[in-house]
Protein backbone atom coordinates (compact mmCIF):
# COMPACT_ATOMS: atom_id res chain seq x y z
CA UNK A 1 0.00 0.00 0.00
CA UNK A 2 1.39 3.42 -0.99
CA UNK A 3 1.92 5.93 1.78
CA UNK A 4 -0.60 8.79 1.91
CA UNK A 5 -1.33 11.78 4.01
CA UNK A 6 -4.09 12.09 6.60
CA UNK A 7 -5.55 15.47 5.76
CA UNK A 8 -7.86 15.28 8.73
CA UNK A 9 -7.37 13.47 12.01
CA UNK A 10 -9.20 13.37 15.31
CA UNK A 11 -7.68 12.01 18.48
CA UNK A 12 -9.99 10.99 21.35
CA UNK A 13 -12.36 13.76 20.29
CA UNK A 14 -14.99 14.71 22.84
CA UNK A 15 -17.80 17.21 22.86
CA UNK A 16 -20.16 17.78 25.75
CA UNK A 17 -23.09 20.18 25.61
CA UNK A 18 -24.48 21.66 28.77
CA UNK A 19 -28.25 21.71 28.83
CA UNK A 20 -29.29 23.31 32.11
CA UNK A 21 -27.62 21.09 34.70
CA UNK A 22 -27.46 18.06 32.40
CA UNK A 23 -24.36 17.24 30.37
CA UNK A 24 -25.06 15.80 26.92
CA UNK A 25 -22.07 13.83 25.67
CA UNK A 26 -22.43 14.17 21.92
CA UNK A 27 -18.96 12.79 21.12
CA UNK A 28 -17.26 10.41 23.51
CA UNK A 29 -13.78 9.82 22.06
CA UNK A 30 -13.79 9.72 18.29
CA UNK A 31 -10.59 8.59 16.56
CA UNK A 32 -10.72 9.10 12.83
CA UNK A 33 -8.32 9.71 9.98
CA UNK A 34 -9.37 10.89 6.55
CA UNK A 35 -7.11 10.47 3.51
CA UNK A 36 -6.51 13.22 1.02
CA UNK A 37 -8.81 12.83 -2.05
CA UNK A 38 -11.07 10.43 -0.17
CA UNK A 39 -14.88 10.41 -0.52
CA UNK A 40 -16.13 9.12 2.84
CA UNK A 41 -19.67 8.71 4.17
CA UNK A 42 -20.65 8.93 7.82
CA UNK A 43 -23.85 7.13 8.84
CA UNK A 44 -25.64 6.53 12.06
CA UNK A 45 -28.93 7.01 13.88
CA UNK A 46 -30.31 10.40 14.71
CA UNK A 47 -28.57 12.04 17.65
CA UNK A 48 -25.42 9.90 17.47
CA UNK A 49 -23.23 13.00 16.98
CA UNK A 50 -22.71 13.22 13.23
CA UNK A 51 -23.45 16.93 12.92
CA UNK A 52 -21.41 17.67 16.03
CA UNK A 53 -18.47 15.84 14.48
CA UNK A 54 -18.87 17.75 11.19
CA UNK A 55 -18.90 21.08 13.04
CA UNK A 56 -15.67 20.18 14.82
CA UNK A 57 -14.02 18.89 11.63
CA UNK A 58 -15.02 22.17 9.98
CA UNK A 59 -13.56 24.36 12.75
CA UNK A 60 -16.99 25.80 13.56
CA UNK A 61 -16.64 24.97 17.26
CA UNK A 62 -14.11 24.01 19.91
CA UNK A 63 -13.96 20.44 21.20
CA UNK A 64 -14.44 19.75 24.92
CA UNK A 65 -11.54 17.30 24.81
CA UNK A 66 -9.12 15.65 22.40
CA UNK A 67 -7.72 17.01 19.18
CA UNK A 68 -8.82 17.87 15.68
CA UNK A 69 -5.93 18.14 13.27
CA UNK A 70 -6.62 19.84 9.98
CA UNK A 71 -3.56 19.54 7.77
CA UNK A 72 -1.60 18.87 10.92
CA UNK A 73 -2.83 21.91 12.88
CA UNK A 74 -4.88 21.37 16.02
CA UNK A 75 -8.03 23.51 16.04
CA UNK A 76 -8.62 22.74 19.71
CA UNK A 77 -5.79 25.14 20.52
CA UNK A 78 -7.09 27.92 18.30
CA UNK A 79 -9.03 31.07 19.09
CA UNK A 80 -12.08 32.22 17.14
CA UNK A 81 -10.02 34.25 14.68
CA UNK A 82 -7.72 31.35 13.88
CA UNK A 83 -10.61 28.94 13.47
CA UNK A 84 -12.28 31.43 11.16
CA UNK A 85 -9.12 31.49 9.07
CA UNK A 86 -9.09 27.69 8.86
CA UNK A 87 -12.71 27.73 7.65
CA UNK A 88 -11.91 30.43 5.15
CA UNK A 89 -8.87 28.71 3.70
CA UNK A 90 -9.43 24.98 4.13
CA UNK A 91 -13.09 24.13 4.54
CA UNK A 92 -16.19 24.10 2.38
CA UNK A 93 -19.60 23.40 3.91
CA UNK A 94 -22.76 22.04 2.32
CA UNK A 95 -25.87 21.88 4.51
CA UNK A 96 -29.14 20.02 4.42
CA UNK A 97 -31.06 23.29 4.17
CA UNK A 98 -28.86 24.69 1.37
CA UNK A 99 -28.32 27.91 3.34
CA UNK A 100 -28.06 30.20 0.37
CA UNK A 101 -28.42 33.91 1.12
CA UNK A 102 -31.97 34.62 -0.07
CA UNK A 103 -31.30 38.27 -0.95
CA UNK A 104 -28.57 37.42 -3.46
CA UNK A 105 -28.69 35.67 -6.81
CA UNK A 106 -26.92 32.37 -7.36
CA UNK A 107 -23.96 34.30 -8.74
CA UNK A 108 -24.09 36.72 -5.80
CA UNK A 109 -23.92 33.80 -3.37
CA UNK A 110 -20.83 32.44 -5.06
CA UNK A 111 -19.27 35.90 -5.28
CA UNK A 112 -19.75 36.47 -1.53
CA UNK A 113 -17.72 33.35 -0.83
CA UNK A 114 -15.02 34.51 -3.21
CA UNK A 115 -14.94 37.98 -1.66
CA UNK A 116 -14.70 36.61 1.87
CA UNK A 117 -11.96 34.26 0.79
CA UNK A 118 -10.19 36.91 -1.25
CA UNK A 119 -10.19 35.02 -4.55
CA UNK A 120 -12.49 37.29 -6.49
CA UNK A 121 -10.17 37.87 -9.45
CA UNK A 122 -7.54 36.18 -11.53
CA UNK A 123 -5.29 33.16 -10.80
CA UNK A 124 -7.41 30.92 -12.98
CA UNK A 125 -10.30 31.20 -10.52
CA UNK A 126 -12.72 32.28 -13.22
CA UNK A 127 -11.89 29.26 -15.38
CA UNK A 128 -12.25 27.01 -12.35
CA UNK A 129 -15.65 28.51 -11.59
CA UNK A 130 -16.80 28.12 -15.19
CA UNK A 131 -15.75 24.47 -15.14
CA UNK A 132 -17.55 23.92 -11.85
CA UNK A 133 -20.76 25.47 -13.09
CA UNK A 134 -20.62 23.30 -16.20
CA UNK A 135 -20.08 20.19 -14.10
CA UNK A 136 -22.94 21.12 -11.79
CA UNK A 137 -25.11 22.12 -14.79
CA UNK A 138 -26.18 25.44 -13.34
CA UNK A 139 -24.42 27.87 -15.72
CA UNK A 140 -27.75 29.24 -16.98
CA UNK A 141 -29.23 29.66 -13.49
CA UNK A 142 -26.71 32.18 -12.16
CA UNK A 143 -28.96 35.24 -12.42
CA UNK A 144 -31.74 33.76 -10.29
CA UNK A 145 -32.50 34.22 -6.62
CA UNK A 146 -32.67 31.01 -4.54
CA UNK A 147 -36.46 31.34 -4.30
CA UNK A 148 -36.59 30.92 -8.10
CA UNK A 149 -34.54 27.70 -8.05
CA UNK A 150 -35.59 24.11 -7.34
CA UNK A 151 -34.18 22.39 -4.27
CA UNK A 152 -31.75 20.39 -6.38
CA UNK A 153 -30.57 23.53 -8.15
CA UNK A 154 -30.19 25.41 -4.87
CA UNK A 155 -28.09 22.60 -3.47
CA UNK A 156 -25.88 22.58 -6.56
CA UNK A 157 -25.36 26.35 -6.20
CA UNK A 158 -24.46 25.72 -2.56
CA UNK A 159 -21.96 23.07 -3.65
CA UNK A 160 -20.42 25.47 -6.17
CA UNK A 161 -20.15 28.09 -3.42
CA UNK A 162 -18.51 25.56 -1.07
CA UNK A 163 -15.82 24.44 -3.51
CA UNK A 164 -15.22 27.56 -5.58
CA UNK A 165 -12.11 28.37 -3.55
CA UNK A 166 -10.76 24.80 -3.74
CA UNK A 167 -10.98 23.98 -0.02
CA UNK A 168 -8.85 21.11 1.25
CA UNK A 169 -11.95 19.45 2.67
CA UNK A 170 -15.61 19.56 1.65
CA UNK A 171 -18.00 18.72 4.49
CA UNK A 172 -21.61 17.92 3.59
CA UNK A 173 -24.14 17.30 6.39
CA UNK A 174 -27.10 15.41 4.93
CA UNK A 175 -26.83 17.21 1.59
CA UNK A 176 -29.70 15.22 0.09
CA UNK A 177 -31.86 15.28 3.22
CA UNK A 178 -34.22 17.88 1.76
CA UNK A 179 -34.26 16.49 -1.79
CA UNK A 180 -36.44 13.94 -3.59
CA UNK A 181 -34.78 10.76 -4.84
CA UNK A 182 -34.20 12.06 -8.36
CA UNK A 183 -32.49 15.22 -7.20
CA UNK A 184 -30.61 13.27 -4.53
CA UNK A 185 -29.13 11.11 -7.23
CA UNK A 186 -28.11 14.11 -9.31
CA UNK A 187 -26.46 15.77 -6.33
CA UNK A 188 -24.68 12.59 -5.24
CA UNK A 189 -23.33 12.11 -8.76
CA UNK A 190 -21.98 15.63 -8.57
CA UNK A 191 -20.08 14.84 -5.38
CA UNK A 192 -18.65 11.78 -7.13
CA UNK A 193 -17.61 13.94 -10.11
CA UNK A 194 -16.06 16.60 -7.90
CA UNK A 195 -14.10 13.92 -6.11
CA UNK A 196 -12.84 12.34 -9.36
CA UNK A 197 -12.25 15.45 -11.47
CA UNK A 198 -10.82 17.83 -8.89
CA UNK A 199 -9.49 15.24 -6.41
CA UNK A 200 -11.71 16.92 -3.82
CA UNK A 201 -11.64 15.37 -0.35
CA UNK A 202 -15.26 14.98 0.71
CA UNK A 203 -16.96 13.82 3.91
CA UNK A 204 -20.71 13.25 3.63
CA UNK A 205 -23.23 12.59 6.39
CA UNK A 206 -26.26 10.65 5.30
CA UNK A 207 -29.16 8.52 6.46
CA UNK A 208 -29.42 6.87 3.08
CA UNK A 209 -27.78 3.41 2.87
CA UNK A 210 -27.80 3.56 -0.94
CA UNK A 211 -25.27 6.29 -0.67
CA UNK A 212 -22.63 3.76 0.22
CA UNK A 213 -22.46 2.89 -3.46
CA UNK A 214 -21.22 6.36 -4.24
CA UNK A 215 -18.44 6.44 -1.67
CA UNK A 216 -15.02 4.90 -1.09
CA UNK A 217 -15.55 4.41 2.57
CA UNK A 218 -18.37 4.05 5.05
CA UNK A 219 -17.98 5.17 8.66
CA UNK A 220 -20.71 4.21 11.09
CA UNK A 221 -21.36 6.02 14.34
CA UNK A 222 -23.44 5.27 17.41
CA UNK A 223 -23.80 7.12 20.72
CA UNK A 224 -20.94 9.50 20.06
CA UNK A 225 -18.46 6.86 18.90
CA UNK A 226 -17.26 5.39 15.61
CA UNK A 227 -18.43 1.77 15.68
CA UNK A 228 -17.50 0.63 12.21
CA UNK A 229 -15.14 1.81 9.48
CA UNK A 230 -15.00 0.08 6.08
CA UNK A 231 -11.53 1.34 5.22
CA UNK A 232 -9.68 2.70 8.27
CA UNK A 233 -6.31 4.43 8.01
CA UNK A 234 -3.73 2.41 9.94
CA UNK A 235 -0.63 3.84 11.63
CA UNK A 236 1.64 2.16 9.07
CA UNK A 237 -0.12 4.11 6.31
CA UNK A 238 0.64 7.53 7.78
CA UNK A 239 3.65 9.32 6.35
CA UNK A 240 3.37 12.67 8.00
CA UNK A 241 4.12 13.06 11.65
CA UNK A 242 1.34 14.38 13.77
CA UNK A 243 2.51 16.72 16.43
Amino acid at each position, binding site marked *: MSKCRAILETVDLRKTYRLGDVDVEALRGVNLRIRETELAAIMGPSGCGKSTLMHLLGAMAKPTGGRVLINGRDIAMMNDGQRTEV*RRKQIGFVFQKFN*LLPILTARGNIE*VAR*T*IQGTARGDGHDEHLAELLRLLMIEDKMGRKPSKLSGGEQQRVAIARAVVNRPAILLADEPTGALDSKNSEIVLNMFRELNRKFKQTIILVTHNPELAAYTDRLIEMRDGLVVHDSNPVGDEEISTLVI
Partner: protein
Amino acid sequence: MIFASLISRPVRTLVSVLAVALEVTMILVIVGLTTGIAKESGRRIVGVGADILLQGPNSSYMLALSSGTLPVAIGGKVKSDVPGVKAVAPVLLQTNSQGGLDLVYGIDPVSFEAVGGPFHFLDGQMFSKPGEIVVDDLYARSKKLRPGARIELLSQTFTVSGIVENGKGARLFLPIGLAQEMTGAANKATLFYVKVDEGQDVDAVKTAIEKFLQGYKVTRMSDLMSQMAPSKIPGLEPFLRTVVFIAVAVGVLVIFLSMYTTITERTREIGILRSLGASKTYIVVLIFEESIVVCLLGVIVGVFASKMVAGTIVKVFPTLIVTMTAEWYLKAAGFALLSGIIGSFYPSLKAAKLDPIEALAYE
Protein backbone atom coordinates in the same frame (compact mmCIF):
# COMPACT_ATOMS: atom_id res chain seq x y z
CA MET B 1 -24.36 42.52 -0.63
CA ILE B 2 -25.09 45.82 1.13
CA PHE B 3 -27.37 47.11 -1.60
CA ALA B 4 -29.06 43.73 -1.99
CA SER B 5 -29.75 43.76 1.72
CA LEU B 6 -31.12 47.32 1.64
CA ILE B 7 -33.28 46.61 -1.41
CA SER B 8 -34.63 43.39 0.08
CA ARG B 9 -36.05 45.38 3.02
CA PRO B 10 -37.39 48.43 1.19
CA VAL B 11 -39.71 49.77 3.88
CA ARG B 12 -37.12 49.56 6.63
CA THR B 13 -34.53 51.18 4.39
CA LEU B 14 -36.93 53.94 3.34
CA VAL B 15 -37.96 54.73 6.90
CA SER B 16 -34.34 54.80 8.09
CA VAL B 17 -33.29 57.02 5.20
CA LEU B 18 -36.19 59.39 5.90
CA ALA B 19 -35.33 59.53 9.58
CA VAL B 20 -31.74 60.48 8.81
CA ALA B 21 -33.05 62.98 6.24
CA LEU B 22 -35.26 64.44 8.97
CA GLU B 23 -32.21 64.74 11.21
CA VAL B 24 -30.28 66.57 8.49
CA THR B 25 -33.23 68.81 7.61
CA MET B 26 -33.85 69.67 11.24
CA ILE B 27 -30.24 70.72 11.72
CA LEU B 28 -29.93 72.64 8.46
CA VAL B 29 -33.24 74.49 8.63
CA ILE B 30 -33.17 75.46 12.29
CA VAL B 31 -29.53 76.47 12.22
CA GLY B 32 -30.09 78.20 8.88
CA LEU B 33 -33.09 80.07 10.19
CA THR B 34 -31.50 81.32 13.40
CA THR B 35 -28.17 82.28 11.87
CA GLY B 36 -29.98 83.73 8.88
CA ILE B 37 -32.08 86.00 11.06
CA ALA B 38 -29.08 87.00 13.16
CA LYS B 39 -26.98 87.76 10.10
CA GLU B 40 -29.83 89.63 8.48
CA SER B 41 -30.35 91.93 11.43
CA GLY B 42 -26.61 92.55 11.45
CA ARG B 43 -26.67 93.28 7.74
CA ARG B 44 -29.59 95.69 8.23
CA ILE B 45 -27.76 97.67 10.88
CA VAL B 46 -24.73 98.01 8.66
CA GLY B 47 -27.11 99.00 5.88
CA VAL B 48 -28.02 102.13 7.80
CA GLY B 49 -24.72 103.45 6.52
CA ALA B 50 -23.47 105.04 9.74
CA ASP B 51 -19.90 104.89 11.08
CA ILE B 52 -20.60 105.10 14.80
CA LEU B 53 -23.44 104.10 17.09
CA LEU B 54 -24.02 106.27 20.14
CA GLN B 55 -26.08 104.86 23.02
CA GLY B 56 -26.84 105.74 26.59
CA PRO B 57 -24.83 104.30 29.49
CA ASN B 58 -25.45 100.60 30.24
CA SER B 59 -27.39 99.88 27.10
CA SER B 60 -26.81 97.10 24.65
CA TYR B 61 -28.01 96.82 21.13
CA MET B 62 -29.58 93.43 21.58
CA LEU B 63 -31.35 94.10 24.87
CA ALA B 64 -33.45 97.00 26.09
CA LEU B 65 -34.48 97.86 22.59
CA SER B 66 -37.18 100.36 23.31
CA SER B 67 -36.35 103.00 25.77
CA GLY B 68 -36.28 106.62 24.80
CA THR B 69 -33.86 107.91 27.38
CA LEU B 70 -31.46 110.24 25.62
CA PRO B 71 -32.34 113.88 24.91
CA VAL B 72 -32.44 114.45 21.17
CA ALA B 73 -30.47 117.63 21.76
CA ILE B 74 -27.35 115.57 22.50
CA GLY B 75 -27.22 114.69 18.83
CA GLY B 76 -27.09 118.30 17.77
CA LYS B 77 -24.38 119.00 20.34
CA VAL B 78 -22.23 116.18 19.09
CA LYS B 79 -22.60 117.40 15.53
CA SER B 80 -21.68 120.97 16.32
CA ASP B 81 -19.06 120.42 19.03
CA VAL B 82 -17.15 117.28 18.06
CA PRO B 83 -14.80 117.85 15.13
CA GLY B 84 -15.06 115.44 12.20
CA VAL B 85 -18.75 114.61 12.65
CA LYS B 86 -20.69 115.07 9.44
CA ALA B 87 -24.20 114.08 10.54
CA VAL B 88 -26.08 112.67 13.55
CA ALA B 89 -29.45 110.91 13.29
CA PRO B 90 -31.57 110.28 16.41
CA VAL B 91 -33.67 107.09 16.39
CA LEU B 92 -36.43 106.14 18.81
CA LEU B 93 -36.88 102.35 18.83
CA GLN B 94 -40.17 100.62 19.34
CA THR B 95 -40.99 96.96 18.99
CA ASN B 96 -44.31 95.96 17.55
CA SER B 97 -45.53 92.57 18.69
CA GLN B 98 -48.76 92.56 16.72
CA GLY B 99 -48.46 89.76 14.18
CA GLY B 100 -44.79 88.99 14.65
CA LEU B 101 -41.98 90.88 16.31
CA ASP B 102 -40.88 93.89 14.31
CA LEU B 103 -38.54 96.71 15.00
CA VAL B 104 -40.00 100.20 14.34
CA TYR B 105 -37.63 103.13 13.86
CA GLY B 106 -38.85 106.57 14.75
CA ILE B 107 -36.67 108.78 12.55
CA ASP B 108 -36.19 112.28 11.26
CA PRO B 109 -35.84 111.58 7.51
CA VAL B 110 -33.49 114.50 6.86
CA SER B 111 -30.82 113.53 9.43
CA PHE B 112 -31.32 109.79 8.82
CA GLU B 113 -30.64 110.20 5.09
CA ALA B 114 -27.74 112.59 5.85
CA VAL B 115 -26.10 109.77 7.82
CA GLY B 116 -26.85 106.81 5.61
CA GLY B 117 -27.72 108.16 2.20
CA PRO B 118 -31.17 108.41 0.67
CA PHE B 119 -33.87 105.78 1.01
CA HIS B 120 -34.56 103.94 -2.19
CA PHE B 121 -38.32 104.07 -2.74
CA LEU B 122 -39.75 101.21 -4.77
CA ASP B 123 -43.26 102.64 -4.55
CA GLY B 124 -44.91 105.71 -2.99
CA GLN B 125 -43.00 108.28 -0.94
CA MET B 126 -41.80 109.33 2.54
CA PHE B 127 -44.43 109.92 5.23
CA SER B 128 -45.68 113.49 5.21
CA LYS B 129 -49.12 113.45 6.79
CA PRO B 130 -49.98 112.31 10.35
CA GLY B 131 -50.65 108.57 10.60
CA GLU B 132 -48.43 107.64 7.69
CA ILE B 133 -45.77 104.95 7.83
CA VAL B 134 -43.00 103.68 5.53
CA VAL B 135 -42.37 99.92 5.27
CA ASP B 136 -39.68 97.92 3.50
CA ASP B 137 -40.33 95.65 0.54
CA LEU B 138 -40.08 92.35 2.47
CA TYR B 139 -42.57 93.54 5.08
CA ALA B 140 -44.85 94.79 2.32
CA ARG B 141 -44.64 91.45 0.52
CA SER B 142 -45.30 89.38 3.64
CA LYS B 143 -48.34 91.49 4.57
CA LYS B 144 -49.35 92.15 0.96
CA LEU B 145 -49.20 95.93 1.37
CA ARG B 146 -49.26 98.69 -1.22
CA PRO B 147 -49.14 102.44 -0.67
CA GLY B 148 -52.46 103.55 0.74
CA ALA B 149 -52.97 100.27 2.59
CA ARG B 150 -53.88 100.47 6.28
CA ILE B 151 -52.13 98.46 8.98
CA GLU B 152 -52.62 97.96 12.68
CA LEU B 153 -49.40 98.60 14.61
CA LEU B 154 -48.59 99.48 18.20
CA SER B 155 -52.36 99.70 18.86
CA GLN B 156 -52.86 102.31 16.16
CA THR B 157 -53.93 102.34 12.54
CA PHE B 158 -51.42 103.59 9.97
CA THR B 159 -51.54 104.25 6.26
CA VAL B 160 -48.60 103.08 4.18
CA SER B 161 -47.17 106.05 2.32
CA GLY B 162 -44.26 104.31 0.64
CA ILE B 163 -42.25 101.11 0.26
CA VAL B 164 -38.44 101.24 0.49
CA GLU B 165 -35.79 98.72 -0.34
CA ASN B 166 -34.91 96.61 2.73
CA GLY B 167 -31.65 96.90 4.61
CA LYS B 168 -31.94 100.23 6.44
CA GLY B 169 -31.96 99.16 10.08
CA ALA B 170 -35.64 98.41 10.53
CA ARG B 171 -38.52 97.29 8.38
CA LEU B 172 -40.89 100.04 9.59
CA PHE B 173 -40.28 103.79 9.83
CA LEU B 174 -42.35 106.45 11.60
CA PRO B 175 -41.73 110.15 12.16
CA ILE B 176 -39.69 110.46 15.37
CA GLY B 177 -42.11 113.08 16.71
CA LEU B 178 -45.01 110.65 16.48
CA ALA B 179 -42.97 107.91 18.09
CA GLN B 180 -42.11 110.21 20.99
CA GLU B 181 -45.77 111.07 21.41
CA MET B 182 -46.79 107.39 21.37
CA THR B 183 -44.27 106.42 24.02
CA GLY B 184 -44.61 109.56 26.09
CA ALA B 185 -40.93 110.33 25.67
CA ALA B 186 -40.95 113.88 24.42
CA ASN B 187 -37.70 114.98 22.77
CA LYS B 188 -36.07 111.66 23.60
CA ALA B 189 -34.19 109.13 21.43
CA THR B 190 -32.97 105.58 22.03
CA LEU B 191 -29.77 105.92 20.05
CA PHE B 192 -27.92 108.05 17.56
CA TYR B 193 -26.30 107.03 14.32
CA VAL B 194 -23.21 109.12 13.53
CA LYS B 195 -21.50 109.71 10.19
CA VAL B 196 -17.97 111.10 10.16
CA ASP B 197 -16.59 113.56 7.61
CA GLU B 198 -15.04 112.21 4.43
CA GLY B 199 -11.46 111.08 5.08
CA GLN B 200 -11.83 111.29 8.86
CA ASP B 201 -10.40 108.56 11.06
CA VAL B 202 -13.44 106.85 12.66
CA ASP B 203 -11.42 105.84 15.72
CA ALA B 204 -10.32 109.42 16.37
CA VAL B 205 -13.90 110.70 16.15
CA LYS B 206 -15.07 107.86 18.40
CA THR B 207 -12.48 108.83 21.01
CA ALA B 208 -13.53 112.47 20.71
CA ILE B 209 -17.20 111.60 21.27
CA GLU B 210 -16.29 109.43 24.27
CA LYS B 211 -14.45 112.38 25.77
CA PHE B 212 -17.31 114.75 25.01
CA LEU B 213 -20.00 112.47 26.46
CA GLN B 214 -18.41 110.71 29.41
CA GLY B 215 -20.06 107.37 30.29
CA TYR B 216 -21.98 107.03 27.03
CA LYS B 217 -21.54 103.94 24.94
CA VAL B 218 -19.81 104.65 21.65
CA THR B 219 -19.40 101.76 19.21
CA ARG B 220 -17.87 101.56 15.76
CA MET B 221 -20.40 100.05 13.38
CA SER B 222 -17.77 97.64 12.09
CA ASP B 223 -17.31 96.34 15.66
CA LEU B 224 -21.05 96.09 16.13
CA MET B 225 -21.26 93.79 13.15
CA SER B 226 -19.00 91.26 14.84
CA GLN B 227 -21.00 91.62 18.07
CA MET B 228 -24.07 90.67 16.07
CA ALA B 229 -22.41 87.46 14.81
CA PRO B 230 -24.52 84.44 15.72
CA SER B 231 -21.91 83.19 18.15
CA LYS B 232 -22.23 86.43 20.18
CA ILE B 233 -25.96 86.29 20.57
CA PRO B 234 -26.74 85.13 24.10
CA GLY B 235 -28.40 81.72 24.22
CA LEU B 236 -28.01 80.97 20.55
CA GLU B 237 -25.10 78.56 20.86
CA PRO B 238 -26.74 76.40 23.56
CA PHE B 239 -29.95 76.48 21.56
CA LEU B 240 -28.21 75.22 18.43
CA ARG B 241 -26.33 72.61 20.43
CA THR B 242 -29.63 71.37 21.80
CA VAL B 243 -31.17 71.20 18.34
CA VAL B 244 -28.20 69.24 17.02
CA PHE B 245 -28.25 66.93 20.03
CA ILE B 246 -31.94 66.11 19.62
CA ALA B 247 -31.51 65.59 15.88
CA VAL B 248 -28.54 63.28 16.39
CA ALA B 249 -30.43 61.40 19.11
CA VAL B 250 -33.30 60.79 16.67
CA GLY B 251 -30.80 59.51 14.09
CA VAL B 252 -29.01 57.26 16.58
CA LEU B 253 -32.23 55.71 17.85
CA VAL B 254 -33.64 55.03 14.41
CA ILE B 255 -30.41 53.51 13.09
CA PHE B 256 -30.07 51.49 16.28
CA LEU B 257 -33.59 50.11 16.04
CA SER B 258 -33.29 49.44 12.34
CA MET B 259 -29.98 47.61 12.64
CA TYR B 260 -30.91 45.86 15.87
CA THR B 261 -34.05 44.35 14.38
CA THR B 262 -32.29 43.22 11.22
CA ILE B 263 -29.68 41.39 13.23
CA THR B 264 -32.33 39.08 14.65
CA GLU B 265 -33.91 38.79 11.23
CA ARG B 266 -30.54 38.00 9.69
CA THR B 267 -29.14 35.63 12.31
CA ARG B 268 -29.12 32.78 9.79
CA GLU B 269 -27.42 34.95 7.18
CA ILE B 270 -24.71 35.85 9.65
CA GLY B 271 -24.24 32.15 10.45
CA ILE B 272 -23.86 31.39 6.75
CA LEU B 273 -21.26 34.13 6.30
CA ARG B 274 -19.36 32.88 9.33
CA SER B 275 -19.41 29.30 7.98
CA LEU B 276 -17.93 30.65 4.74
CA GLY B 277 -15.04 32.02 6.78
CA ALA B 278 -16.19 35.59 7.40
CA SER B 279 -14.43 37.00 10.45
CA LYS B 280 -16.11 38.91 13.27
CA THR B 281 -14.59 42.07 11.84
CA TYR B 282 -16.19 41.30 8.47
CA ILE B 283 -19.62 41.13 10.14
CA VAL B 284 -19.03 44.36 12.09
CA VAL B 285 -17.88 46.14 8.93
CA LEU B 286 -20.87 44.79 6.99
CA ILE B 287 -23.35 46.25 9.50
CA PHE B 288 -21.45 49.54 9.68
CA GLU B 289 -21.26 49.87 5.93
CA GLU B 290 -24.94 49.26 5.62
CA SER B 291 -25.80 51.96 8.13
CA ILE B 292 -23.32 54.36 6.51
CA VAL B 293 -25.03 53.84 3.14
CA VAL B 294 -28.40 54.53 4.80
CA CYS B 295 -26.96 57.70 6.36
CA LEU B 296 -25.44 58.91 3.10
CA LEU B 297 -28.76 58.42 1.32
CA GLY B 298 -30.39 60.25 4.24
CA VAL B 299 -27.93 63.13 3.87
CA ILE B 300 -28.71 63.47 0.16
CA VAL B 301 -32.47 63.38 0.73
CA GLY B 302 -32.07 65.68 3.74
CA VAL B 303 -30.13 68.32 1.80
CA PHE B 304 -32.79 68.40 -0.91
CA ALA B 305 -35.57 68.47 1.67
CA SER B 306 -33.83 71.33 3.51
CA LYS B 307 -33.60 73.35 0.33
CA MET B 308 -37.29 72.78 -0.31
CA VAL B 309 -38.30 73.61 3.24
CA ALA B 310 -36.11 76.72 3.21
CA GLY B 311 -37.61 77.79 -0.12
CA THR B 312 -41.11 77.31 1.23
CA ILE B 313 -40.36 79.21 4.44
CA VAL B 314 -38.97 82.18 2.56
CA LYS B 315 -41.93 82.16 0.19
CA VAL B 316 -44.52 82.05 2.96
CA PHE B 317 -42.64 84.36 5.34
CA PRO B 318 -40.62 86.80 3.18
CA THR B 319 -39.14 88.50 6.24
CA LEU B 320 -37.39 85.27 7.30
CA ILE B 321 -33.99 84.35 5.98
CA VAL B 322 -32.52 80.84 5.92
CA THR B 323 -28.75 80.76 5.53
CA MET B 324 -27.36 77.30 4.81
CA THR B 325 -23.60 77.46 4.64
CA ALA B 326 -21.19 74.89 3.24
CA GLU B 327 -19.86 74.54 6.77
CA TRP B 328 -23.25 73.46 8.08
CA TYR B 329 -23.89 71.11 5.15
CA LEU B 330 -20.68 69.35 6.11
CA LYS B 331 -21.53 69.43 9.81
CA ALA B 332 -25.03 68.03 9.20
CA ALA B 333 -23.58 65.25 7.03
CA GLY B 334 -21.00 64.57 9.73
CA PHE B 335 -23.65 64.39 12.45
CA ALA B 336 -25.75 62.04 10.30
CA LEU B 337 -22.79 59.70 9.79
CA LEU B 338 -21.94 59.96 13.47
CA SER B 339 -25.45 58.84 14.40
CA GLY B 340 -25.07 55.94 11.96
CA ILE B 341 -21.86 54.86 13.63
CA ILE B 342 -23.16 55.24 17.18
CA GLY B 343 -26.49 53.62 16.30
CA SER B 344 -24.96 50.53 14.69
CA PHE B 345 -22.22 50.09 17.27
CA TYR B 346 -24.05 47.73 19.60
CA PRO B 347 -26.01 45.86 16.90
CA SER B 348 -22.82 45.14 14.95
CA LEU B 349 -21.05 43.80 18.04
CA LYS B 350 -24.07 41.67 18.85
CA ALA B 351 -24.02 40.30 15.31
CA ALA B 352 -20.32 39.51 15.48
CA LYS B 353 -20.73 37.74 18.81
CA LEU B 354 -23.29 35.26 17.49
CA ASP B 355 -22.15 31.67 17.67
CA PRO B 356 -21.86 30.42 14.07
CA ILE B 357 -23.53 27.06 14.73
CA GLU B 358 -26.41 28.49 16.73
CA ALA B 359 -26.86 31.22 14.12
CA LEU B 360 -27.07 28.61 11.36
CA ALA B 361 -29.66 26.62 13.31
CA TYR B 362 -31.79 29.76 13.87
CA GLU B 363 -35.25 29.57 12.30
